[in-house]
C-alpha cells in the first residue's frame, strides 16, 4: 500500500541531480510523499571518479556512492526506468508496467553514452564510460593488460581514459576528427598544448582521423579501420563520443523534448510543444535545456557536475515557491578534469569565442590561464595547473567584463593573443544521430 493519500512529488532520475533535488525539497520543508525513480539498480553515485580513479584501479566502482546530505524519507524505485509520461492523467509509467501518479515532477534523467554507431558494434571488447557498471567492466578488461587500447573521441572522457591507460602502462591510440584533443570545448590553440602533453606521456594521438568500422575474430574486436584506409590492431576499444539526453520516454508527453534535451523556461519549468510552461513539471541537470541569463538567454544544456547540483537545488526551490516568487536560474558552467598530471578547469561557456588571450603563465610550461572573448566580452576562462586565479576570472566572466578582463595583473608582461581555433563545422565523424557535446547545443 504505497499509493496512499496524496501522490506527492516524483523525481525521475536517481543520480546526482535527482538526489540533490530531492534533498533540497526536504530541506525546504516539503513533508509529503517523495519518490525517486532510477533506471539503474544502484543508489545515487558519483560519476567523475569513474573515468579517473576507478579506471586506474584506485577505487572500486561500487565505492562511489554519493553521500546523502539530508534524511530523504523517500520511496526508491530503482532498476525501473520511466517509460512514458501521461500529463493529462498526471501519471508516470514505468518500464515494468507500474504506474506512479504525481502532483509535481522533477525530471533529472540525465544522458546516456553514445554507443558505437558503425560496423562491429556487437563485438566484445567495446566499452563506453557513463555508468558505474560501465566503469567496473572496463576496469576489469584493462586489468587483463590488453595489447593496445583504442580510444575513439578526444573529448573530456576520452582524454581522461587515455591518461588512465598510460598510467597503467598500456599502449593507447586516441583518435579524433579534429586537429587537437578537446577542440570543441577549448579550441585548438589550447588543445595543442594538451596534444603535446599527451604525446609526451606516450599516447599515439591521431588528429583528423575517423574510424570507419571495427572488426574482429570470434566475436572479439581485433581491428579498427580508419577512414583513410589504415588498419589498427586493437583488442580494447573505448567509445567516447559524448552523450545523448535521456528523453525518449517523453516522446508522447507533449513536451518540447528531443535528443538535445528537455526545453525549460528560465525557472526550470518544462515547456510543452505548445510553448507553455507546465507549472508542475521541472527539470535539472544534464537533461535540462534552459535559457541562461548569463549568456543572453541562449538555451543551453550543461553536462557538468556543478550544474547538476545547482540546477537541481534551484528547481526544487522553485517547486516549493509560489509562481510569483520563482527565480530564473543563472549558471556559469564549470568543469574540472585531471589527466596527464594536469588539473584542467574551465569556467564559462566557450561557444562562439572569437578571441583568446593567455593571461597568466605560459603554454611552454603547460601551466597557464587563458580567457576566451566574444565580441569584446570575456565569456570563459580555462586553467591548466593554474586554478588559483580562476575564481577572479570566473567572477569577471559572470559580470560580462571586457576582453581580456584585467589588463593590469601580475605575471602579464607575456600576454599572448591567439586565435582560439574552434572547429567551424561539426565533422561527420563516427556518429549516427546529430552529435551533441557537453555544454554545446
Amino acid at each position, binding site marked *: 500500500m504505497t499509493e496512499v493519500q496524496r501522490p506527492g512529488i516524483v523525481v525521475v532520475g536517481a543520480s546526482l541531480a535527482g538526489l540533490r533535488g530531492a534533498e533540497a525539497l526536504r530541506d525546504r520543508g516539503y513533508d509529503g510523499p517523495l519518490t525517486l525513480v532510477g533506471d539503474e539498480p544502484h543508489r545515487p553515485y558519483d560519476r567523475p571518479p569513474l573515468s579517473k580513479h576507478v579506471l586506474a584501479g584506485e577505487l572500486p566502482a561500487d565505492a562511489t556512492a554519493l553521500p546523502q546530505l539530508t534524511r530523504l524519507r523517500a520511496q526508491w524505485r530503482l532498476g525501473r526506468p520511466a517509460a512514458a509520461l501521461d500529463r493529462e492523467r498526471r501519471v508516470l509509467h514505468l518500464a515494468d508496467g507500474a504506474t506512479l501518479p504525481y502532483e509535481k515532477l522533477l525530471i533529472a534523467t540525465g544522458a546516456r553514452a553514445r554507443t558505437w554507431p558503425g560496423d562491429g558494434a556487437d563485438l566484445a571488447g567495446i566499452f563506453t564510460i557513463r555508468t558505474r557498471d560501465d566503469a567496473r567492466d572496463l576496469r576489469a578488461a584493462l586489468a587483463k593488460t590488453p595489447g593496445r587500447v583504442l580510444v575513439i573521441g578526444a573529448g573530456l572522457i576520452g582524454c581522461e581514459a587515455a591518461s588512465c591507460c598510460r598510467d597503467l602502462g598500456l599502449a593507447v591510440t586516441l583518435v579524433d576528427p579534429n586537429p587537437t584533443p578537446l577542440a570543441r570545448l577549448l579550441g585548438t590553440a589550447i588543445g595543442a598544448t594538451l596534444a603535446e602533453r599527451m604525446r609526451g606521456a606516450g599516447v599515439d594521438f591521431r588528429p583528423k582521423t575517423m574510424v570507419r568500422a571495427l572488426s574482429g575474430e570470434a566475436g572479439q574486436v581485433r581491428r579498427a579501420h580508419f577512414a583513410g584506409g589504415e588498419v589498427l590492431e586493437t583488442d580494447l576499444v573505448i567509445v567516447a563520443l559524448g552523450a545523448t539526453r535521456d528523453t525518449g520516454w517523453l516522446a508522447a508527453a507533449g513536451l518540447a523534448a528531443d535528443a538535445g534535451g528537455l526545453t525549460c523556461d528560465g525557472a526550470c519549468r518544462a515547456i510543452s510543444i505548445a510553448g507553455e510552461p507546465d507549472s508542475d513539471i521541472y527539470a535539472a541537470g544534464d537533461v535540462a535545456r534552459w535559457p541562461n541569463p548569463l549568456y543572453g538567454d541562449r538555451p543551453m544544456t550543461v553536462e557538468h557536475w556543478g550544474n547538476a547540483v545547482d540546477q537541481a537545488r534551484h528547481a526544487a526551490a522553485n517547486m516549493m515557491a509560489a509562481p510569483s516568487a520563482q527565480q530564473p536560474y543563472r549558471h556559469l558552467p564549470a568543469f574540472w578534469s585531471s589527466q596527464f598530471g594536469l588539473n584542467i578547469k574551465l569556467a564559462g561557456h566557450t561557444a562562439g569565442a572569437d578571441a583568446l588571450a593567455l593571461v597568466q603563465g605560459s603554454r611552454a610550461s603547460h601551466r597557464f590561464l587563458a580567457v576566451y572573448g566574444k565580441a569584446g566580452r570575456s565569456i570563459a576562462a580555462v586553467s591548466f595547473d593554474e586554478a588559483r586565479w580562476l*575564481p*577572479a576570472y570566473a567572477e569577471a566572466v559572470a559580470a560580462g567584463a571586457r576582453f581580456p578582463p584585467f*589588463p*593590469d595583473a*601580475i605575471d602579464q608582461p607575456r600576454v599572448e593573443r591567439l586565435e582560439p581555433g574552434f572547429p567551424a563545422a561539426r565533422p561527420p565523424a563516427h556518429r549516427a544521430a546529430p552529435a551533441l557535446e557537453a555544454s554545446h547545443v
Partner: protein
Amino acid sequence: MSDETLFAQVLDPKNRADPYPLYARMRETPVSRQADGSYLVSTHAALSSLIFDPRLSSEDLPPSRRPATGNPLKDWILNPIRNRVVNAHRPLIFRDPPDHDTLRGFVMKEFTIARVRDAHAKVATLVDALIDKCRGRDTVCLVDDLSYPLPVAVICELLGVPEADERQFHAWATRLATALEPDARHDEAGRREIAATFDAISDYMRRLIREKRRHPADDMLSGLAARGGRGRPVMGDIDLISTAILLLVAGHETTVNLITNGMLTLLRHPDELEKLKADPERAPRVIEEILRYEPPVHFRTRKALGAIAVAGATIPAGSPVVLMLAAGNRDPARFTQPDRFDPERNDNQHFGFGGGLHYCVGAPLARIEAEIALVTLCRRLVAPRLLDDPPPYRPGASLRGPKNLGIAIAGIA
C-alpha cells in the same frame, strides 16, 4: 563615512594588547580607504576573493621615503615592506609569479615530508630540554625560555647550520627580526647595526653555501645549493642567500608568536588548558583555533595593479592594500561567535597562515612546533598561572605577540 584613521590606531602601541574592537569597526566597511590612500580589507569574504586576485601584487610595493643604501638586499632588510628593489634581489614573499613560483618551487621541493617528520623528533627533544632548564624556578619566561630558542634551533637544523654556529646565528636572527617589523622605526645607530648584522649573516651564508656545494649533506641548504641540469646551480647565490635569510627570519618570528599567543590563550581559558592536558589528541584543533583567534601575523600589504571592484567598493589602481587577515578571522559573517575561543568549531577556514600563492611554506613545521610545545607545556608546567594580563607586547602590529610571558609555576613535572 568610514574612519580614515583605523589603521593608524592599529599601529598605535596602546592598542596592541587588544586590537579586536578596532577590527570589528573596520569590518563595518569591508573595504575602507585610509587617510594615506591605502585600503583596508577586513571581511572574510573580501579577503578570500582578493588573495586569489591576480591584480594584487606583492612586488610592486609603494616606495619608501627612506634613502636606499645601494645594496638591494640590505635595503630589503632595512625597509622590509616599502622599498622597491631590483627584482632579482628580493626574497620570494616580495615576488610575483612567475619568479615567485620558480623560487617557491625550489623551497617546496626541499621542504619534504621526511624532513618535516625528522624535525618532529628534534622538536620533542628540544622542548623537553628547554623546559628541564626551568627546574627549580617558580617562574617561566616563556619567550626567552622556550618560544624563542625553539624555532631558531629547528630552522638551523633544517637548513644545515653547524651546531657550533647556532649561538651566533641566533644572535643575528634576533637583530634581523627586529628590523623586519613592518612598522619598525630605527634610529641611525640601530640601522647601522642592522646593516652590519646583515652583512655578517650574508657573508656567513655565502661561505656556508660554498661549503655545502663542496660537501653536500642531507639538509635544505645543500639541496637548494645543489647543481641542476648541465652542472648549473639551481638557484643563484643572491637568491639563495635571500631565501635562506627569509626562512630563518620568517620561519622563526612567526613561530615565536604562535607558541606564545597559544600559551597565553590557554592560560586565559584554563578549562581548555585542562582539556588539552587530558587529551593531547585535541592539539590539532587547538592549534587551528589559535591560528584563527590569535594569529601570529595580523596583516600583509599588497599593491593594486589595476582597479579592483570588491565588496561594493573599488580599489583604484596603484593603491596600497592592507589585507587585515586577523580581522577576517573574527568575521561574524563567516564564524559563529567569532570572539569565542572554541577548538570544537568546525569548518575553521582561517587566515592564520595567510592564503593564496603566498600561503605559509612552513605551515606544517609551525604546526608541529606549536603542537609539541603546547602539549608539553600543559603536561609539564605544574599549576601554571599568568603573571601579567595583558602581558607586555613587542612593537609589531602585524607580527604581533607578547614581548614576554611570565608564568608562575608550582614546579616542573
